[in-house]
């Protein structure tokens, strides 16, 4: 090539331009073999991808795979139609699950795991609350013009943005998976830990919302708040402490802002005292039934009940369980160290009904709230069968106490212990219940309101806003027949048999809520 700036005036001549040609090297047979085998491999997979039945649902991903779009001109001209074909094609590619697993194994050998440690996802900034709210940086832009919008178009510039528009669907759902720290000690002890960054502003807002509950509810109603620490707090090796904020500090800070009329439940100390026991799952972000039990004991004592002794429960085990942290990372260490779910039968006799999403008026009677048919990646759904807008249990106790539990999925496990102490227990999921809690408290004669969230949820605006909205939502009467009629035996049996398939199996029906499928 000519020297660019040292170029002297010579006329351009195509003949002087050296074109590259493939080197002459291999033998004829080798070339035939290379051409034939590579082409056959492509063709064979191409035909298989076309001919074999395509998967429509992915169990590990817990989602429906993309479907071929239906043609219309508008979508065609906007480019949605062709990009829809492209994503459906790769989403339902033949042997998908095996290829996904193969690619996960491949990424596992990109390097070494010193001390069995690996990280998936960007580590969140740690908010320990020490530094003041960071000032917005004075942005010096020499040109005086901040031209294009955000810098999200990574490899921008003509060649890349024109060339690699394939990046577009990688994060189609926009769900933010937190950073997951995996520690494989090699002796069968292996765990995934979600790194807690914390957000004190959000935590303060959470406390503020709960204080609104205190002012809105009559003084006669007890309010309890239980913020549950997660596995990361107890299991992160000290060498890596800096990767996460202290959940204890965050919870203490939050509790410190609560109205004195709210009783804070110190789940932290109870869990800390038993941190060497199996209180958190390793492949899933939830606590185990045992962990929930310890938190329940504290609650029971605080609320004036005698907690059951763990040894007196009738217990069952579901295994193997590979939960959300495995799903998110596909990590081979987690795959090889599945969890087991030990769950306890509820020791009293009670009846229950469920309210499903999108159908607030109909009670669905159930045999119980333990979904013993939960298996595989959904095993945590044994507790309450998953997340429902409202679950109501009625026991034959007569102590004048009626509970309302407002929770996200961490509350599922602990609710199954708590409900044994109340005449009636209303369990609502803060994300899905569409009614007004003040009216619910009135209508049902609630004496105790228990708000249960894990510390991530208590630091997340989405959850907090949902809890706040429960105060101002329009009134929603309890299901019509619920309060008067006793649960009918035959329907509950039927319910147990049919087993809430849309929640547990995750595969069917339920699309009314905009596609949010909840699994424990």
């Amino acid at each position, binding site marked *: 090539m000519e020297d660019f700036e040292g170029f002297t005036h010579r006329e351009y001549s*195509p003949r002087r331009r050296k074109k590259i040609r493939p*080197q002459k090297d291999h033998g004829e047979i080798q070339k035939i073999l290379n*051409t034939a085998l590579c082409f056959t491999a492509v063709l064979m997979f191409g035909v298989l991808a076309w001919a074999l039945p395509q998967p429509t649902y992915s169990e590990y991903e817990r989602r429906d795979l993309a479907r071929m779009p239906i043609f219309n001109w508008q979508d065609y001209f906007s*480019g949605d139609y062709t990009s829809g074909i492209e994503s459906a094609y790769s989403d339902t590619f033949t042997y998908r699950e095996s290829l996904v697993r193969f690619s996960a194994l491949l990424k596992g050998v990109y390097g070494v795991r010193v001390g069995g440690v690996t*990280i998936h996802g*960007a580590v969140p900034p740690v908010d320990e609350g020490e530094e003041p709210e960071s000032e917005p940086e004075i942005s010096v832009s020499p040109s005086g013009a901040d031209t294009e919008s955000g*810098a999200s178009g990574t490899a921008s510039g003509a060649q890349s943005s*024109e060339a690699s528009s394939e990046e577009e669907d990688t994060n189609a759902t926009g*769900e933010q998976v937190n950073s997951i720290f995996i520690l494989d000690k090699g002796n069968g002890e292996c765990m995934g830990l979600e790194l807690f960054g914390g957000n004190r502003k959000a935590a303060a807002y959470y406390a503020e919302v709960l204080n609104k509950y205190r002012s809105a509810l009559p003084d006669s109603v007890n309010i309890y708040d239980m913020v549950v620490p997660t596995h990361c707090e107890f299991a992160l090796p000290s*060498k890596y402490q800096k990767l996460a904020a202290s959940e204890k500090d965050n919870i203490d800070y939050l509790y410190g802002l609560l109205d004195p009329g709210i009783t804070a439940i110190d789940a932290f100390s109870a869990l800390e005292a038993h941190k060497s026991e199996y209180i958190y799952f390793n492949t899933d972000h939830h606590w185990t039934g045992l962990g929930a039990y310890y938190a329940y004991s504290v609650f029971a004592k605080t609320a004036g009940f005698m907690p059951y002794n763990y040894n007196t429960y009738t217990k069952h085990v579901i295994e193997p369980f590979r939960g959300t942290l495995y799903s998110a990372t596909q990590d081979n260490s987690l795959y090889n160290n599945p969890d087991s779910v030990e769950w306890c039968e509820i020791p009293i006799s009670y009846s229950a009904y469920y309210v499903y999403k999108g159908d607030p008026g109909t009670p669905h009677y159930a045999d119980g709230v333990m979904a013993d048919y939960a298996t595989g990646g959904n095993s945590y759904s044994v507790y309450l069968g998953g997340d429902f807008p409202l679950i109501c249990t009625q026991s034959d106790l007569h102590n004048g106490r009626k509970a309302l539990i407002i929770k996200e999925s961490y509350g599922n496990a602990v609710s199954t212990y708590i409900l044994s102490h109340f005449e009636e227990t209303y369990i609502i999921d803060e994300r899905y219940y569409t009614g007004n809690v003040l009216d619910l408290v009135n209508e049902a004669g609630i004496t105790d309101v228990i708000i249960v969230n894990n510390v991530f949820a208590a630091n997340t605006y989405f959850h907090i806003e949902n809890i706040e909205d429960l105060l101002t939502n329009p009134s929603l009467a309890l299901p019509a027949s619920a309060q008067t009629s006793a649960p009918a035996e035959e329907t509950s049996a039927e319910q147990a048999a049919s087993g809430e398939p849309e929640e547990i199996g995750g595969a069917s029906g339920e699309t009314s809520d905009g596609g949010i499928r909840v699994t424990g």
Partner: protein
Amino acid sequence: MVFSSLLFLYAFMPLNLILYFTTKNRNFRNMVLILFSLIFYSWGEPIWVVLLIYSAMIDYFHGLMAEKYRGHLGAKLAVLSSLVLNLSLLAAFKYSGFLAENINAITGLSLPVPSFSLPIGISFYTFQTISYVIDVYRGDVKPQREIGKFFMYVSLYSQLVAGPIVRYADVAREVDYRQETLHDVSAGISRFLIGLTKKVLIANTAGAFAEEYLNGDLLKSATAVVWFGILMFAVQIYYDFSGYSDMAIGLGWIFGFHFLENFNYPYIAKSATDFWRRWHMSLGQFFRDYVYIPMGGNRKHQYYNLLVVWFLTGLWHGASWNFILWGLWFGFLIMGERLFLRKVLDKLPAVIGHLYLLFVVMLGWVLFYFTDLGKAWECLRVMFGAAGSGFWDVSLEIVLENNLFWLIAAIAFCLPVYPRVRAFIESRPALLNIAGWVKTPANLLMLATNTALLVGSSYNPFLYYRF
């Protein structure tokens, strides 16, 4: 559509190859190429495919005019008209929004800001057709009289969307009389798979790291983390772009075309001047042959010429000030090298030159990455320890360990490992024979790996619980 997609690999390409090679009829083969190129392009640009056709058609006629009126005013007018029409396409679709924003900012007017989505590949194919008309005008090449063949050249999907910028003169003979050979097809397959691996195995992973480390709150990041982010962007952009060029060149061989190389291990350069002789060579040559030299080259107002060329080079990369600054950054470096820096560097050990080049290129990538100049400034401050959260971050340590082999490979293959190994093998016939046998399994392995990674990247777990 892009090469690194399952649909392209397992549906588009096999169908294209089967149809192409069913007959030996040249016209049929050319028509297959045109048809598939149109499908390929309209897949991503169902509307703006008309621009491609328009640009090709006008320059087909401009080429004929330039030939017919050779030596007369008509030829000059043909070139002028080609320049005006093509550059106004670019101006309208690529730069109008940028221009309106800046006029508004300067004058305080509020002109409506047009926001076209940039038609794919417009920067490449307009430059190809401009070069065609100028080459015909200069008498470097005969115009193509068959409109179908000319359109095949312009629309050829292998280099349409991401280069290299193929000059008509370089493929003129092959447009008319090319010959597909088993040797070229076999080598083309291998070259394509190497490019695909560069893109899927290296560039995509590096890109994910760059995004992870550069798109967050930089002021809360550690210095080493931001350097790593920029390093990953440097790796991504090289492998992405050169991988695309490899795939284009490989596909070209399969269909009997031979393009020029577009990259020559740019990161081993010893100066910015050297870097641009190795990076996106077809673009550098375009600006050299059609802007720099016509303006007077080294003979008159050289530094002004350099300034214009590098301003344009920056602007070509995107309608945003950061790209212009990026171009000018290299312009000033090259001027500085011309004035004194090269003399200094020549006296020092070569390693200093390499380090200097890598340093200035990395700083350049900061400008290139952040369209928001405020962000770029933030990034630079953290890189030099004037902001951010300290120097080191334990999570970076884990990431470096977890990807150690991948990192070593990604950096090693920026060096000319492959040609060296190749030269060694070629000097020993026995090894050459073994290499011939190993090539096929290696290709199949690359295909399988890339397929798994592409399927794996569609893995998108629905994690309800994340807030």
